[in-house]
């Protein structure tokens, strides 16, 4: 069970959050199938530090940007997508 230091709630266990994965920018809806489906399906899936989206569903219900090392599970940055980050 990881500790995620929520900028709104403080240290919480990871089972209060839901995982959103890599942040992939949404292309224009007028784009071609290949581009759209890269957005839907293709992932870098790097090993190491990853910027990802989490949702504090059982806490403040805010979406968070998190930098996590997906081998050690060390977390070095957590911010609210709304930029409201005074814990």
């Amino acid at each position, binding site marked *: 069970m990881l500790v995620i230091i929520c900028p709104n709630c403080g240290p919480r266990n*990871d089972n209060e959050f839901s995982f959103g994965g890599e942040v992939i920018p949404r292309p224009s809806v007028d784009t071609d*199938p290949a581009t759209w*489906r890269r957005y839907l399906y*293709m992932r870098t*899936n*790097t090993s190491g530090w990853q910027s990802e989206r989490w949702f504090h569903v059982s806490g403040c219900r805010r979406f968070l940007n998190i930098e996590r090392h*997906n*081998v050690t599970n060390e977390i070095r940055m957590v911010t609210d997508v709304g930029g409201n980050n005074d814990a």
Partner: protein
Amino acid sequence: MSRRTRFSAWKLITHGLSRSPWPKVWEHHDLASAYDVVIVGGGVHGLATAYYLARNHGITNVAVVEKSYIGSGGSGRNTAIVRSNYLTVEGSRFYDRSVELYERLASDLNFNVMFSQRGHMTLAHNDSSLRTMRWRAEVNKLEGIDSAVISPDEVKRLAPFIDTSDHPRYPIVGALWHPPGGIVRHDAVVWGYARAAASLGVHIHQETELTGIDVGSGRIVGVRTSRGSVSTSTVINCTAGWSSLVSAMAGVTLPITTRPLQAAVTEPVRQFLHPVIVSGSLHTYVSQTARGEFVFGASVDPFTSYATRGSLEFTTGLAGHILELMPAVANMRLLRQWAGLCDMTPDYGPIIGPTEIEGFYVDVGWGTYGFKAGPVAGESVAAMIANGKPGDLISPFGLDRFEKGTLTAEKGAAAVGH
């Protein structure tokens, strides 16, 4: 298979009495400067592919490069369940062939892989999951697969330890029963393929890590490893967990995220659970090995990771669910937990076939069901390499389906009902 001593009861006795040593199951080789085919990953997929390349197609100038020891990845960490009762036609056909190969594997490889066809039972706890079971059963029957929906009484008869009482939270309203399903000794499958492939001339390079893939004008020209470089025109990515990273070496991006899948084993007790029991609603599957241990599995971890350390929550959640099904095992002890890495695809279907790089093939994205597919994947990939194009069994699983938007329908099963 001339270069191999045949195993048999008689050989056991003669060797035992004479104390004469057994011949080596496989030899160590220096890394050659060139191979016709380089297979990345010394698990069941890679070794089976090597074996069928050699046996079915006479392609023996083959190297299997494994960064650790053979079977150290998913092949040695899975819960060794074999079945073919999938939802889709393509899935059922594919895995049915795998079961067929597993049934013959011991004699094919002259290595007892201990395939125990004790039956595979998927419990339904509500009407919607029972509907999905029936869907699977009906598709399976049309493919000639032994698969049917059975009543709670049948469940009780086949697995008396299961609590089929009027359970408040998870009543058992029926089950999908698949007699040919069962468990196999996973290490034995790996060793059997390795021994057979080695005896046909395949080079198995353990402790040899792939460090790069050389691509020239859109085609494979060679690979680099921790033990030196090799020139080759054909590379097959047979890894699980690291498939995105290996493909990235060739500049190929995959629709894959890597998640740990955890498993655990209890101390041995006297045999009392015969079939493999699965509960989708409880995210749990359990079987009792020939050694008497209970082997448990669950669904993949809630977030992606390349770590195989395992979590406490897996064991606490698992135990809660198991005791919902079998209250009597409360004082059995969990002995060991571990995790393997699973390459999850958006539609729960594997990715087998060519890529935009000529000579670079993938056999990846096996999610949580790669082990049971090992033999058929090896056979099919070998045929694809030999014939230059994917056969019917694997054509639905090409990488291009994601750009085309023609996903496989196993996703249907995963998303239907609750």
